[in-house]
Structure formats: structure tokens, C-alpha cells
């Protein structure tokens, strides 16, 4: 058992000794009672104060010592240290992986005895060696930082974490990198090894179609976008959506873009106002838009300049519905601007956004890790775990029982 702050243990020892001494040399004042004829008790009798040379109230003493010891252990951050695993293998199971069985084979081949396995897509979880064969590739985007956090949690509170090897089995594509990846790898104390596996092929732009009535500015904006061949994977509606559209989305896995030409089809805002621009992942449009409606709850795919979603996406069956609350004036020239056309094109992306499977490098950043100010304290807290909390709870219970016993003793007296 290790301690984060052993000084508290020494303090608890001192308090415990004091309690023991108090029980050895305690004086007992007899209980008080009313007696109207007290005047007839001989005056010369001294107050009955009995000194005990033996340990008195042994049960109470035991409870008090137990409470003090538990509090001491709790405050000193007692914890049982586990042995860190020899290695941690992070296996990418996101959509970016070309073949997950091949990735698993690579992971098993390169893992050393006693390794832990972490599988990640948009989230990360620990799996056993046996479970690896049953994994399936996810359609979600990968997040390497989520997997790194799980790896850090595994080695937290263990002894010998500095020797744990971190193996990343992933195509390390751009879409699964974020700003936390480099610092998290920089924090890793052991060796880091990246096993790059084949990335999935970048999906081709799917075909799309559009349903409009009459002259439509959005149709004009998307006029230059090739519609592709074969069955459509994206359906943009400028007219009200029907039941058939929803069924198509559920069964085909396509994207249904609901972008009503007329107001009144979406959720009306409490206060209508105007905004000076829209931003999507690809472009920014600076122009004045009247904002009277809003899309329903979902993942934002375009925002107004005040941060509110202008378009959201929510899953429906195998596909998704994308609601766009951007009014386009027929009379203006906004639809013809290149920035607006870029925004409109971004709304035709597949569910979850356009995959970006371009290769990226995993570069550990020690300097980025150093900006985390409470690195040591965080490690200590993580090391202590929940054991001190349980110890403190047990100490409180012991004190409650001690109080109850003391009260019963008084009543009996």
C-alpha cells in the first residue's frame, strides 16, 4: 500500500495515542441526579471522581481508534498500487480503416505479453484479446485523442507506468486527429510506436438530385455541381418533404436535405432578426440574412455568425436528415456568389461530414504537454482513486456508531 501524503498517517498515529492515553487516565464523574434532600448528604464527602487505571470503555476506544486510523489512511491518500501493463495497443476501428481484421492481426502480432487493448472509433473502450476477433468496423469518424485518454487512465495509479509501451495501430488520417493528440502523446512516459495500416479509399462524390418548384436560387447556386450517375445518395428538397422521402432516407442510407423555399416549414424562432453571415466547414458567406426560423436539434453543420446553428443533421434509419434554415432571396445575387455556392455544396456532404482520409503524422509534443499545470497533482489524484473516499466514509460510520454507543451509555448511567 502506498500513500500520497504520509504525514497525515503520522498525525493520525499521534491522535490515536492521545485517545488511548485519555482512556487510560480518564476521570469518571458520576451521573447527575436530582434529590430534594441533598442537604442531608454529609458535606464533608468529596465529589466522587474516580480515576481509572485500566483501559475504560474498550468498545468506544476501539471505535475511536478505528475512526482515527481510517481518517489517517483517507487523508494520507492510501492506495493499493497495481502493476502497469507492459504495453497498451490502440486499435483503430473507425471508418478510416481499410480492413479491420488486418489491423487486428497487426496489433496481435506486434503486442507483447501482458498488453492491454483499446479499440476506438468516435469513442474508445478496453477489450480483451478474445474480443478482438469479434470487432466490426464502425461507420463513425475516429478520435485518436479519446483512445489516448483511455490509455492514460489505464496506467494512472499503477506502478512502473514509465515502462509501458504505447502502440497505435491506425491509418492516422487527418479526420481523427485533433489538437489534444500531440499533448497526450507528449505526456506518455514510455515508448510510443505507431503502426500505420492501410486507410480506406476516399469515397467518391455521390450522386444527388433536387426537387424544386419554379425558379429557385439554390438550384442556381448548385447548377455547376455534377449530379453524378446512378441512384442518388443525396436528395435536396426545396418543397415540403413527404413520407416517401423519409422512407427513402431510412432504407437507402442517403442524405435528405430539407431546405424549404418558403418559410413556415421549420421551427419558428421566438424573435425574428437578421444575421450578417453563415459559416460552414468549407466556406463563410458574408451577407445579410433574415432569420425567422431555426432547424431542429441535431449536429450543427452550418452556423450563423452568432454561433447558433443554421443547419443541423440528425440520424434517421440508415441515413440522416439535414435541416437548413438559411433563407435565400430570389431577387438577390447571394446565390451566385462563390462563397454561398461552397456552403451549399458542403450541405450535400454524406452523413457525418465528408471523410478526410488524407494521411497525417502523429508527432508527440512534450512542450504542449508541459502547459498542463497540475500534471503532478493530477497524477496524485488519479493515483489515490476512490479508496480514500471509502475510508473516510467508513470513518464517519465508525464515529456515528461511537456517538450512538456513547448516548446509550449515558442513558444507562
Amino acid at each position, binding site marked *: 500500500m502506498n500513500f500520497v501524503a504520509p504525514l497525515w498517517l503520522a498525525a493520525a498515529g499521534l491522535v490515536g495515542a492521545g485517545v488511548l492515553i485519555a482512556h487510560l487516565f480518564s476521570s469518571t464523574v458520576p451521573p447527575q441526579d436530582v*434529590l430534594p434532600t*441533598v*442537604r*442531608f*448528604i454529609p458535606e464533608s464527602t468529596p465529589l466522587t471522581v474516580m480515576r481509572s487505571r485500566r483501559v475504560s470503555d474498550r468498545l468506544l476506544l476501539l471505535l475511536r481508534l478505528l475512526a482515527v486510523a481510517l481518517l489517517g489512511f483517507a487523508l494520507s491518500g492510501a492506495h493499493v498500487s497495481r502493476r502497469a501493463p507492459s504495453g497498451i495497443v490502440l486499435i483503430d476501428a473507425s471508418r478510416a480503416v481499410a480492413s479491420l481484421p488486418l489491423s487486428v492481426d497487426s496489433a496481435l502480432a506486434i503486442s507483447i505479453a501482458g498488453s492491454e487493448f483499446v479499440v476506438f472509433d468516435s469513442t474508445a473502450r478496453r477489450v480483451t484479446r478474445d474480443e478482438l476477433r469479434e470487432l466490426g468496423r464502425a461507420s463513425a469518424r475516429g478520435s485518436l485523442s479519446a483512445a489516448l485518454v483511455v490509455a492514460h487512465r489505464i496506467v494512472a495509479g499503477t506502478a512502473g507506468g514509465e515502462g509501458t509501451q504505447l502502440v497505435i495501430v491506425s491509418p492516422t488520417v487527418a479526420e481523427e486527429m485533433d489538437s489534444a493528440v500531440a499533448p497526450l502523446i507528449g505526456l506518455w512516459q514510455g515508448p510510443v510506436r505507431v503502426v500505420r495500416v492501410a486507410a480506406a479509399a476516399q469515397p467518391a462524390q455521390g450522386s444527388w438530385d433536387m426537387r424544386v418548384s419554379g425558379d429557385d436560387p439554390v438550384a442556381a447556386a448548385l447548377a455547376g455541381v455534377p449530379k453524378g450517375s446512378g441512384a442518388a445518395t443525396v436528395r435536396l428538397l426545396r418543397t415540403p418533404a413527404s413520407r416517401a422521402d423519409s422512407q427513402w432516407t431510412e432504407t437507402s442510407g442517403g442524405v435528405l436535405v430539407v431546405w424549404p423555399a418558403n418559410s413556415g416549414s421549420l421551427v419558428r424562432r421566438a424573435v425574428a432578426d437578421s444575421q450578417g453571415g453563415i459559416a460552414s466547414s468549407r466556406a463563410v458567406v458574408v451577407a445579410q440574412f433574415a432569420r425567422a426560423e431555426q432547424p431542429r436539434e441535431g449536429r450543427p453543420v452550418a452556423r450563423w455568425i452568432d454561433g447558433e446553428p443554421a443547419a443541423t443533421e440528425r440520424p434517421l434509419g440508415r441515413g440522416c436528415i439535414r435541416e437548413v434554415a438559411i433563407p435565400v432571396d430570389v431577387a438577390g445575387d447571394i446565390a451566385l456568389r462563390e462563397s454561398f455556392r461552397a456552403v451549399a455544396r458542403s450541405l450535400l456532404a454524406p452523413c457525418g461530414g465528408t471523410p478526410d482520409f488524407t494521411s497525417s503524422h502523429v508527432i508527440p509534443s512534450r512542450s504542449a504537454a508541459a502547459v498542463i499545470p497540475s500534471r503532478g497533482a493530477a497524477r496524485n489524484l488519479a493515483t489515490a482513486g476512490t479508496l480514500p473516499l471509502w475510508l473516510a466514509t467508513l470513518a464517519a460510520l465508525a464515529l456515528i456508531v461511537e456517538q450512538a454507543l456513547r448516548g446509550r451509555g449515558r442513558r444507562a448511567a
Partner: protein
Amino acid sequence: MLRTSAAASLTPYAELLDSLGGLTWPSQVRVRAGDPGSHRSNRLGRSPEFTEYRSYRPGDDLRRLDWKLFGRTDRLYLRIADDHAALRTSIIVDASASMRFPVEGYGKWEHACAIALGLTSVAISDGDAVGISVATSVGERAIPPRRRRDVLHDISELFRSIDVSGEASMAGAVERLVSAPRLVVITDFLGEAERALGALRVAAASGAEIFAVHVVAETEMSPPERAFMASDPERPEFRRAMSDENRSRYLETFAAWRGRVAGELHAMNGNYRMTTTAEPVRDVVRRVVLGGAS
């Protein structure tokens, strides 16, 4: 007849009052002339109840001459009959904190109240007027002497309204009732005992019949056989330790003090009755009115 509400307030005492039916409380001496009652008066009167003849002396009231006897004997005799008068009874009850003992359950105060009601019932049955005075820490609470039976209810209600606490001046109450023909004091004598006894001595010298009912708790007679710090309920800061070593000395001192109080009362020709809370109230009342062993 008692009112319905009055009867309800006396329900706890019903058994006691019932058991005292037929009991009388005769005066030990001839009482002074007054309202008609059941006690022999110190004045000879003209009641139909014949007592004796006496020879006529000049100055006697001619209306009391027995003319029939004069016709037969040719001598002048006066027809003499005893006069009967009522005896006003005043009962003083101590409501100091020492009377609230034991604190829980039936204690000295409850015992004293029952005794007072029992004595009142007997006195009223004799046709005597009974008044009650309760000495409390905030002064005296009193009901003036009355002969009507519903005074029992009023006394019961008065007892229920009393806050038994603090120090009460029994001596003051006795001093105010020093002229009462019959004075009953129900107390534990743990307050100003000397002053109260002095006032009783004055009352006795004035010709009053004195009855002192000394109420003692069983726990006072036999304290718990364990060590404890005893405190005076009237003066909580006054504390002494009771232990196995000094229990016997306590009992001796307490008994000696009771003997001295009894001696003082006997010396003033008073009636001293000691009772513990364990004694049935009926027996206490009988001992008081019939003059049983003290």
C-alpha cells in the same frame, strides 16, 4: 350536586373520594361559636338537643327556663343544650420545586394534591368551609373558604394550573392564615422549615388546630444504591455526591431531621403525619382525620 364538568375534572380522584365517604373529621376541642355545623361549640345554646339542667341564677335569660319542670317541682331550672358550629379549615399546599420529585411519574406533588382533595372532601361532608392556598414560586394562589361541594372541582382545577418550580414561601402562607381555626399544611418541609415551623407555632398559640402532613418520596427515604451527584431542584448549583460510603449517614441525618420536625409540631400540640408517596392516599387521610399513628 356537582356540575358535570366538575365531576369530569375529579374523575382521577373518584376512587379516593368514594372511599372517604362517611368519614368525619371532628374537632379536637370545642370550637368557637359561629355558623351552624357539626362541631361542639364552646357556647351553650338552645338547640333541641338536650344536655343538662342548671339552677336558675339571677340574670339568666328567663326564656330558657323550663316552665313545665317548674310546674312539677316548683323550682326554677334552666334547660341547657350544646351549641354546634362549623369549623373553617384552611389547607396550605407546598408547590416548590422539591415537591416535583420524582420528576417522572407519581411524585410528592401529586400525592399532596390527592391528600388535600381528600381532606377537603371529608371537611365539606362535615359541613365545614374549606379554603385552599398553594404556595408557589411566584406567590400564593388561593381559593377562599367555601362550604359548597363544588369547591372540590375548583381546587382540582387550581392544582392542574400550578407550575411546580422554584422556591415557594410556605412560611408566608402560614403567616397569612395564622387566625384560621384549623390549619392543614401539606409540605416536604424542605424550604424554609424553621420559619414555617415558627409561623405554625404562632398559629397554634392562637388556638388553631394544626395538622402537618409531611410528604416524603420513596427515593428520598431510600436513595438508589449507586454513586451519583445529587443536586437540589430548588438550587441546582447545590450539589453533593451520594456514594455507598455516605448513604447510611444520609439516612441517619434525614431521619433525625424528620424526628426534630415531628418533635417541634408535637411541642406546639400540633398533629404531625409523615407519609411517603408509596402510601395510599386514603390511608393518609384516615390517619389525619382519625388521629392515627404519626
